[in-house]
């Protein structure tokens, strides 16, 4: 199993000279599973580059299958969907898992993005690939091409966002973007989901100080991410979903500060890194 990052930014893409190293695209990562299948985590604008790279593979010929896990449907997690080229190749097949009360509601949300006032393709049905859209049942593991996937809702503003635990060949990757915990930190159900992960990809939108200025936005601070990593005894913490105003040196500083926090708070054995476009990690 390996995970690759295609977009690591939160809220809105942040192009410019200041974000070239970590990247300015919004949230998207991909996991190559031990049996050679593909799982995509969120479809921010990073999904465009992922999709383009897939066109050189079976996805370019209409023989691709992949699973897409959506944490939630804020724009920065779905705005790459209309620009994910493999969706336009007939014969490709995608299963999209997300949250919400019903599969029909989730489909309606994705349809809404394609509507004629917003996008020339007008409807999902004009895209070409087979697209199956399903809501997940929280806490109940399901099988995705030989991996076991479990989802749990994290508090995130008014919406809530799913965190995913993906296990295969005794390795665990957890994706927890957009987590706005209360003052008591991550709930026990979230810590359970993260427990013992080889790689915990965790929302680290803000420094502690910036989060205090924007508590209503429902994002984690670096300190929240560090606390969750220590409580869940993970092996590696990967900082993710950086604020659109943070330049590369701000992200460097987050990593340095995170290292110190881990060391000071009993997480000295936990590795730390910042997600960056093009970075591939193997648990």
């Amino acid at each position: 199993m390996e995970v690759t990052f295609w977009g690591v930014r939160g809220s809105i893409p942040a192009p410019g000279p200041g974000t070239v190293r970590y990247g300015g695209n919004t949230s998207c990562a991909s996991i190559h599973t031990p049996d050679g299948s593909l799982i995509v985590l969120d479809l921010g604008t990073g999904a465009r580059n992922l999709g383009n790279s897939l066109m050189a593979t079976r996805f370019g010929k209409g023989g691709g299958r992949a699973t897409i896990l959506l944490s939630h449907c804020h724009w920065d997690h779905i705005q790459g969907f209309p620009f994910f080229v493999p969706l336009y190749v007939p014969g490709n097949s995608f299963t999209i898992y997300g949250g919400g009360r019903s599969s029909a509601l989730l489909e309606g949300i994705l349809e809404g993005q394609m509507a004629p006032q917003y996008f020339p393709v007008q409807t999902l049905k004009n895209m070409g690939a087979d697209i199956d859209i399903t809501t997940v049942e929280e806490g109940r593991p399901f099988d995705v091409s030989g991996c076991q996937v479990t989802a749990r809702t994290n508090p995130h503003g008014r919406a809530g966002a799913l965190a995913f635990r993906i296990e295969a060949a005794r390795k665990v990757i957890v994706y927890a973007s957009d987590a706005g915990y209360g003052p008591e930190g991550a709930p026990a159900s979230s810590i359970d989901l993260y427990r013992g992960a080889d790689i915990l990809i965790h929302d680290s939108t803000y420094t502690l100080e910036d989060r205090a200025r924007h508590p209503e936005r429902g994002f984690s601070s670096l300190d929240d991410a560090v606390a969750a990593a220590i409580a869940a005894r993970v092996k590696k913490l990967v900082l993710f979903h950086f604020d659109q105003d943070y330049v590369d040196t701000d992200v460097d500083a987050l990593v340095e500060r995170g290292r110190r926090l881990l060391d000071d708070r009993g997480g000295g054995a936990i590795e730390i890194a910042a997600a960056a476009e093009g970075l591939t990690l193997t648990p």
Partner: protein
Amino acid sequence: MNVRFWGVRGSLPVPGAKTERYGGNTSCVEVRSAAGTRIIVDAGTGIRKLGKDLMHAEFDAGKGSAHLLISHTHWDHIQGLPFFAPLYRKGNRLYVYARQRDDVHLRAVFASQTEDPYFPIPFEEAKADISFRELTDSARFAIADVKVSCTRLNHPYIATAYRLAVDGAAVAYVSDTAPFADILFEHEFIREPPSPGEKLSHGDEEKLRTMRAGLVRLCEGADLVIYDTMFTADDYRRMPHFGHSRPSDAVAVCQEAGAKALVLYHHAPERSDGEVDEIVGQTRATAQKLEVLAAYEGLDIPLGTS
């Protein structure tokens, strides 16, 4: 007047080293008259930085007012608006203008963009005073000292071009549009390019001729024409049904209209800085007296008395 570019890209924002010089933000241009009237054309992601810039002055005190002209409501022309900081300061005023639609009220198009579950802050919670004005295809009106005129473009679901005249100068904003041949874009989804040899109906041809004549009139004698030149000749051969122009289409319209300068705009997401440089060079070689440049983030052009 002064024209400033905040986002120059089409389709979607493209961060990265390849777009560092021209910029990766989607469409947004600011026009300011000498008397201080502020008009923003399109609200792609470029408007976020404009908003931050505006918060240094009267918009921070809740005393700012701006007029936002929308060419059409495809994402790359509206997706920055929820991140426009002046919207969240009470007392600021934003007047939004766009072509009237048959199906959805303009306000609903914008309100849906920020509704649950797409965005955490609903439109109703934006504290500024936001009002909407729906336009006809060839509307003419004044925004304080600025004279505005409109004409219809050839783009899926229809877009509007604007001419802004003030301070003895005029700028035309022409994005997005296909050339006025091959396909007439209205409300249908066009799945495939026309087959070789397929002819337009006489009625469609006539509509396109009228539309192009309207655009040439709009650009007449303009000091600056900002034009959707997203496609190369090869792109257009493959994707004539996507609704974008080549530099040669823009040059022809500008020359017929006797415009002074052309700004290549709405660069394709895959276009690297070096490729944009090349396109500018090639276009200049064919443009004779017409001055040609490519839009980049931060480009500032004073026109007339400013």
